[in-house]
């Protein structure tokens, strides 16, 4: 059964010590693998407490860019990465991948508490159970990942990300392995629960980008650069069935190199 998620009634009603929002600035990023330059001299600014969605063809280097910001690329050079408040960035970034990355031997609750466990801190179980409830999985604290559906697993991953309570969240296609309905639900849930944080979302799906992003960027070329960005009004998640959204969708598809072989006005 698909959980219904109402964006208005969650723990966000009770303020949860949200860390001060910070922006992220990346200047002159360069990344090369085996002599192939993915990008060079790339600049990117993520404004505090906004969703930035990053689109691009496969292999253009958008995941690599995200990984670079996450500190997961060894050998990236000439990169200047800083937070808007001048404090160190790495300990203020949370990471969410396409795979849920749940440890199969840990229960849902213990997976959510993985960060504290890894850092050797006391595990705040009550907080973990609160987050489980927030993602609609109260009562499943002891469930092993294998007994959860794909959508449920990704919701546990979202709760784990929230547990880290970091002001910057980097998401690498976290919704792309889910079916359409589950994806829609999880997108709404993420927008609500991650509100106030600075998000970079890498995605393949132009509609997802338009639905969630305050800004949509397309990466293109070899080495890659950014095409002129789209800035979206109104707060996400926004309806995508409007004429202007349809036009933006067309524009993004064109930028992503999708041939449009249907007649004009169809």
């Amino acid at each position, binding site marked *: 059964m698909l959980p219904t998620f109402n964006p208005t009634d969650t723990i966000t009603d009770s303020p949860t010590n949200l860390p001060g929002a910070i922006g992220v600035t990346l200047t002159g990023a360069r990344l090369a693998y085996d002599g192939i330059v993915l990008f060079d001299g790339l600049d990117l600014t993520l404004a505090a407490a906004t969703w930035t969605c990053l689109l691009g063809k496969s292999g253009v280097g958008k995941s690599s860019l995200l990984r670079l910001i996450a500190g997961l690329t060894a050998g990236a050079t000439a990169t200047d990465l800083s937070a808007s408040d001048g404090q160190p960035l790495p300990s203020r970034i949370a*990471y969410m991948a396409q795979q849920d*990355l749940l440890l199969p*031997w840990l229960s849902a609750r213990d997976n959510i508490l993985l*960060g504290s466990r*890894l850092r050797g801190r006391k595990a705040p179980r009550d907080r973990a159970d609160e987050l489980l409830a927030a993602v609609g999985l109260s009562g499943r604290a002891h469930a092993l990942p*294998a007994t959860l559906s794909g959508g449920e697993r990704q919701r546990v991953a979202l709760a784990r990300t929230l547990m880290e309570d970091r002001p910057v969240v980097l998401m690498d296609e976290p919704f792309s392995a889910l079916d359409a309905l589950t994806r829609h639900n999880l997108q709404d849930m993420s927008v609500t629960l991650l509100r106030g944080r600075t998000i970079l979302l890498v995605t393949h799906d132009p509609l997802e980008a338009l639905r969630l992003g305050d800004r949509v960027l397309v990466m293109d070329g070899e080495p890659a650069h950014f095409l002129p960005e789209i800035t979206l009004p109104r707060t996400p998640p926004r309806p995508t069935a409007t004429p202007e959204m349809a036009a933006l969708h067309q524009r993004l598809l064109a930028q992503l190199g999708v041939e449009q072989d249907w007649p004009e006005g169809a």
Partner: protein
Amino acid sequence: MTWLRPIIILAGLIAVWQVVIWATQVEHFILPAPAAVASALVDDWDLLLDNAGITLLEIVIGLVLGILLGCLTALTMAASTRARAWVLPVVVASQAIPVFALAPVLVVWLGFGLWSKVAMALLIIYFPVAAAFYDGLRRTDPGWLDLAQTMQASRWAVLRHIRMPAALPVLGSGMRVAAAVAPIGAIIGEWVGASAGLGHLMIQANARNETPRMYAALIILALVAVALYFLVDRLARRMTPWQSVTDPSRPANAITNAASKG
């Protein structure tokens, strides 16, 4: 029906055995009749049991020490690349020298008693365990390692909380292999020089032309080995309870599954 099948298979094998004897008229000191072996089993029961106990003790001590040492080696190699550079050649060398060739040396060093056989079993077990566990520790899902890094986990914490548990299923496979080969080590040790044990009993019976006793010892040995395998298999499953949920087909356990399903 499932529990009946092994019995039917056993009865079938004994029948074939008997038919071979009737058909070929083979000499009884080459292949004794099932009835002769059965009576040896009954007559020599106490003797067989005493010696089986000794062999079992050798195997179990060798197994425990071999698994501990193998795990320790794998962990050392996984924890530091510098340690790996020193330890890996030793591990490979331990496998390059045939254990058979070492048996006489070990008997000279450690005597005719228990410990030369324990050492043999240990040597033969060590490599599959160390190799399997190390392999498991190296093949951690890179996504998990990325996640741990963004959580500021120390190397030790990653090893302890992610790489080690993730490698347990592979360690389980290594332990199953170890349990299957452990009796070889103990028996070779007993053949080379011993005053007790099933291997010793077989060599003695062979020399005295007491073939039925030799076969009886062989049957006991087979039972001990099979029981040990299933015990270790049970243990390996207990180590990875999430596996039965994750992957019902469990390819590492094809043998056990086939057996338990009958």
